[in-house]
């Protein structure tokens, strides 16, 4: 099959949220020796389109999550064939969790999906995850970012606990820690010494991108706050 046909097919697979088909098309692209980076760009265009439709109210959270999963299945095939240059273009791993005592997942899922469709590898630890578990997972996954969600004031102290655990085990300089959730304000973020805060899922992507762009070692000298 011609390259353009395969690209169109990959785009459609993602738009149809069909992960297995997207992986199959990705494999065909690899087997034909076509450029893997170009294929990733096509898949990214599809998820950006889905993101646009979410912003305008045409698509909803399940669409984003299904697109994120399809993108993940496609990327699993493509990333195995990235050359050194391509690997360097990957943005890194984000370990994401709703902290201890918090079982609200909608915001976390939204942020995780937006990050994954924008080129981050996302490891979702789920809800009600304790600080040490989060720190261990970040270490195990060789993460660049730890993203913490709280929808309740009573779970917010655990965001601070994650930072304290990282400090105490001497790993604070290894991970950017970004926080968010309904009651989590920029003022609170500053008070606990996190590296970034985003008001929405879209903001969360900007926060992580800006932290990467600035290139400072965590904890960053100036917190990134995006409304």
């Amino acid at each position: 099959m011609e390259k353009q046909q395969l690209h169109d097919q990959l785009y459609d697979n993602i738009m149809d949220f069909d992960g297995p088909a997207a992986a199959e098309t990705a494999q065909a692209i690899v087997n034909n020796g076509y450029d893997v980076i170009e294929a990733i760009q096509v898949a990214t265009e599809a998820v950006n389109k889905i993101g646009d439709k979410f912003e305008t109210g045409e698509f909803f959270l399940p669409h984003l999550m299904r697109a994120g999963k399809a993108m993940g299945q496609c990327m699993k095939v493509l990333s195995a064939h990235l050359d050194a240059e391509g690997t360097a273009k990957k943005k890194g791993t984000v370990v994401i969790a709703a902290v201890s005592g918090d079982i609200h997942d909608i915001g976390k899922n939204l942020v995780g999906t937006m990050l994954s469709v924008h080129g981050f590898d996302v490891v979702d630890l789920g809800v009600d995850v304790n600080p040490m578990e989060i720190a261990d997972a970040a270490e195990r996954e060789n993460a660049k970012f730890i993203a913490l969600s709280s929808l309740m004031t009573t779970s917010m102290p655990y965001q601070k606990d994650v930072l304290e655990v990282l400090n105490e085990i001497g790993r604070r300089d290894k991970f950017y820690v970004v926080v968010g959730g309904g009651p989590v304000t920029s003022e609170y973020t500053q008070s606990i010494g996190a590296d970034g805060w985003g008001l929405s899922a879209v903001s969360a992507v900007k926060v992580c991108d800006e932290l990467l762009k600035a290139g400072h070692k965590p904890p960053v000298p100036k917190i990134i706050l995006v409304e």
Partner: protein
Amino acid sequence: MPIDRDKIMDVLEKAHKGSICKQFDWDTQVIPDTIVEKLQKFGLEKSCDPANPVNQDLELADRFFEAGIEVAAEVGMLCTDTQRVIEFSRDELQAGLDAAPAEFTLGEGDQVANFKHRQLDDPTPPVWVSPLSIAVTEDVFEPLVEGIASIPEVDCLEGPSFETIWGAPLRAGSPYELLAGKMQAELFHKAIKKAGREGIGLYAVGTSPTHYGVLGGYGVPGGYKPERDIVLILSPVEIKTSYENLLKLAHTYNCGGISYGGSWSMIGGYAGGPEGAALSCIACTIILYNAYQCVNGASFPYDLRTMGNCGRPALWALGLVFQALSRNTHLCANSVLNQTAGPATSMLLYESAVGMMTLAACGASSCTGPRTAGGKYTNYITPLEVRFAGEVFKKSAGMSIGQANDIANKLLPKYEEQLGNPGKGQSFKECYNLTSLTPSDEWQKIYDNVKDEVIDVGIPLD
């Protein structure tokens, strides 16, 4: 209505032996696909009419209810701890709705609050439960509760919630919550005594979202009283339960108490747009009354983009849900109103006026609120907006949905463009005298002006 042990055992059995469903599949396929299918089947797609923020088509509301009971019977409720589905047959669901009381009371002595099923346009005043569990500092809790309990329109209390207890951060799921459960009840008792409202009904335990607060505070000496107070069981979206919820139910049964079943659906979330969210709320409400044998509660919609339910799509969905429940059940359905603006802003009062009036006209038996400033900021809640919302709620009883729609259309333009960026306003400490419990002149003036405005457009607060 006492909680039936056999029904609890049935729910627990189903939670452990029901069909397996992974949460990702539930969220991304089971719920959205079923909602889309039923919206199509019942001709409900694109029925949201922003020009009529209070739904005027009652046949539409009835179709939503029919679709809702089908959704409930087809999907059931996911138990997130077992990843199994608690399923109910249509007959079981109907029997559960039939078994729920059409009226009940909370509180005791001269503070008894009478909850009754309400029809549309019903002149029976609805019950105002206030405030929501907005976090406050410990020094503010008692004066704030005293100020709120002093408002005659307030029938029962739920919040606020603590940011810390005895100086330590209140951590969800920890022993602090167990302590906080009793601490909140004790401080409530002190504050309501000062306000002359001893005996007022309490919702337990607002400050503790997990089961620990209920275990620590409900039915224990000096805590919440099962004979007059009610346990909050708040289910995660979308139509899910958990051991936390079921533990609360079991504890309520052990104490001989009664339960409130609540949940919500976000427009833009798992159920889709305003129509999907409304349908999900109706289905979820039917399930809540079955799973928790609750006497009060419901699932209510709000908007993921504004995090409130006083904008047009959310208001439409909100009104429709309560119209559907009012016309097709005898439940004492309770809503929650989520405002986005903060104290000492006129927007907060406009949001309250539109939301509370809509709920009163659409047959809600009770409402819990306000969620001042979206509940985002510590100490951003004052008695004055509680009073205003209660006044509107009570005085709008008997208003027709046509009148409510006309008034909503007059008031919405005053704030709807700011919904994405509402004013934070001022904290309780900034706009209230904490000793005399009186608002600042500025906040009082805003209240007076908005009150005049809403009277002018037809809300009978005079």
